[in-house]
């Protein structure tokens, strides 16, 4: 049985709660990256499910360590995946989320993108919208969006793995050259009930510390984000997600002496 140690601490998990992704740059060994060079596009279940891929990528200590941190003990390791391969120039995909994405405080699936080659901006990198992982939308109804303030083009080193909360908005960006741009997509899933069993220094569960608002977010959305992030943090810690907003530093009038 593989012994996987969590790699994220409270701060790292809180970052993920807000942004919806973790980026592990250049972690996969170059010799394994080159084994992806002749892979055909489309379903690559046999390749992803192979022992070699499992040990080089899926159980890589840093990749699996993030999965262990966010999905708990005995998470499900993918047995298949999809090879997204682009060569000719194209306009780029439209913004979309995969499957039935949207609201909720749970983290039950990590959708991952593995890049065997370095990706430059002209190669049509995957673009993600940090913080969009809980926006409840019809994926076809965001297809007309263009540039969004705060969007992130994953221009990365070879061997990079991006790990996202399923539902984050993403697309293949516009491609202006003929260079091969490959990405292998696969997902880990949760089995265990959530609890704070990532890397911790203290037994006491800290309050969620909010992160800055993303550039595209409106005022009211930032309030919603704050509440949703606190609820997600509580869910991950195995705590009650029902919470009332209150002014933490205020006191009931009845407690004040006359």
């Amino acid at each position: 049985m593989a012994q996987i140690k969590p790699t994220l601490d409270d701060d790292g998990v809180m970052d993920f709660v807000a942004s919806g992704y973790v980026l592990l740059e250049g972690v996969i060994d170059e010799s394994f990256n080159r084994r992806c060079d002749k892979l055909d596009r489309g379903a690559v279940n046999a390749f992803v499910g192979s022992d070699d891929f499992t040990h080089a990528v899926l159980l890589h200590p840093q990749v699996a360590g993030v999965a262990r941190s966010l999905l708990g003990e005995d998470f499900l390791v993918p047995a298949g995946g999809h090879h997204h391969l682009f060569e000719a120039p194209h306009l780029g995909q439209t913004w979309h989320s995969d499957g039935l994405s949207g609201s909720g405080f749970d983290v039950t699936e990590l959708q991952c993108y593995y890049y065997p080659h370095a990706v430059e901006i002209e190669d049509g990198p995957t673009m993600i919208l940090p913080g969009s992982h809980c926006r409840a939308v019809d994926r076809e109804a965001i297809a007309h969006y263009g540039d969004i303030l705060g969007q992130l083009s994953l221009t990365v080193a070879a061997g990079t793995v991006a790990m996202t909360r399923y539902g984050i908005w993403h697309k293949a960006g516009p491609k202006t050259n003929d260079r091969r741009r490959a990405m292998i997509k696969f997902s880990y899933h949760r089995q265990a009930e959530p609890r704070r069993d990532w890397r911790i220094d203290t037994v006491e569960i800290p309050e969620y510390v909010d992160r800055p608002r993303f550039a595209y977010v409106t005022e009211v959305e930032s309030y919603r984000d704050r509440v949703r992030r606190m609820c997600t943090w509580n869910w991950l810690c195995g705590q009650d997600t029902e919470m009332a907003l209150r002014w933490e530093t205020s006191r009931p009038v009845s407690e004040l002496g006359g």
Partner: protein
Amino acid sequence: MKAAIGEWLATSRQKLQADTLTIDDLDRLADLVEEHSCQMILYLYSKSTNMRSPLASWMLYDATQPQEPQLPSQEVPYASVLAAVADGWRIVQFPNAKLFAYQGVDNDYLGFEFILEKMV
């Protein structure tokens, strides 16, 4: 088209003064007026329903240009919807506040959608 008509007017004023304006010139004007014009569409996502608000997102659909890949940008085309209007864009759809339900903590679509057009 607007520029071509302006040019025709300038030339025709001179011809009128020289008494050389002809039926052919009027036919040319008729052709210019009937010439196909094309609608450019600009989606602007404002951070509020106020037209002076900053933008969160944008997309230009320009049918007059070849549909070729363009690298992503983080430079807003205008500071606000109002700035786009000042540059000749006409608003064809305003955000409808009734579509923005205020309940719960879930976010969905981006900003407040203004759709603008420019005829070229």
